[in-house]
């Protein structure tokens, strides 16, 4: 059965409840995406990290906020709430205009999933990367696809689409 995934907008979602979460904010310096990521994760339990997978997935969200949201303007702030006690949970907010292409991205992702489901690899290859009006050659155009797979407790955008909440649960230690 074909059950497509998609990005969800829900302003009232419980993932945006930041009570009890730690907080840090950064100037939007593109050259420091991975450095900021590691600062947030410095006390993360080892089995949450799954090699460098947690770092990689969080860095994609930080990059999106800094580059696409705040246009790498160091005067603009990226706010990160995080909780690494029972699960890896983050709320990341930028000062940008929001992910205005979200619906177009969902339409694109639907076609991509359908091509894969139908084993139509020619179409799938042409749909492999999302190219939006602001994409450049260092944008892989695939970070959100992996994100929807990785954040197994949800990935939710606020109504303004400049804030995202994500959760990854771990059962019985690191997942394979």
């Amino acid at each position: 059965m074909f059950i497509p995934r998609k990005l969800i907008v829900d302003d009232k979602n419980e993932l945006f409840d930041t009570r009890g979460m730690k907080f840090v904010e950064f100037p939007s310096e593109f050259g420091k995406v991975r450095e900021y990521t590691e600062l947030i994760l410095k006390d993360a339990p080892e089995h949450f990290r799954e090699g460098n997978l947690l770092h990689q997935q969080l860095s994609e969200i930080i990059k999106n906020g800094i580059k696409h949201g705040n246009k790498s303007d160091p005067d603009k702030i990226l706010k990160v709430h995080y909780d690494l006690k029972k699960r890896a949970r983050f709320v990341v907010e930028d000062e940008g205009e929001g992910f205005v292409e979200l619906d177009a991205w969902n339409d694109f992702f639907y076609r991509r999933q359908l091509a894969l489901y139908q084993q139509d690899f020619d179409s799938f290859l042409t749909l492999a990367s999302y190219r939006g009006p602001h994409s450049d050659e260092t944008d892989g155009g695939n970070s959100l696809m992996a994100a929807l797979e990785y954040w197994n407790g949800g990935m939710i955008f606020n109504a303004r689409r400049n804030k995202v909440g994500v959760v990854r649960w771990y059962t019985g230690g690191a997942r394979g």
Partner: protein
Amino acid sequence: MKIASEPFDKQGVFFELEGELDLYSTSELRTKILQAFDSDRTRMVLDLSKLTYLDSSGVGILIFILQTLRVKKGKLKVIGLSGTPRKVLEMSNIISLIPMASTRQEAEIEVLKEI
């Protein structure tokens, strides 16, 4: 990231990537890949056995290679994919598009075969 490359036969090129292919190192690889395409080297072998980190920018380069080689009627084989780079390619569903080989020798023979 370190990038080693070595041409083989008339149209072949072997690349070995060592370290982290991320949002900061992707453009260097892209430049080298474009140089290979410009010299008509469209039979490509990528050794990823020393690759320790791959993010969406790096996945994007792999997609770019696959899409370009399709247009240019070239061929790709990847060897040594494992660990989190493999996991990242699985999560973005790209893994099914990537042709693998087990050794460099086998990969070089395969990419030189007629399509």
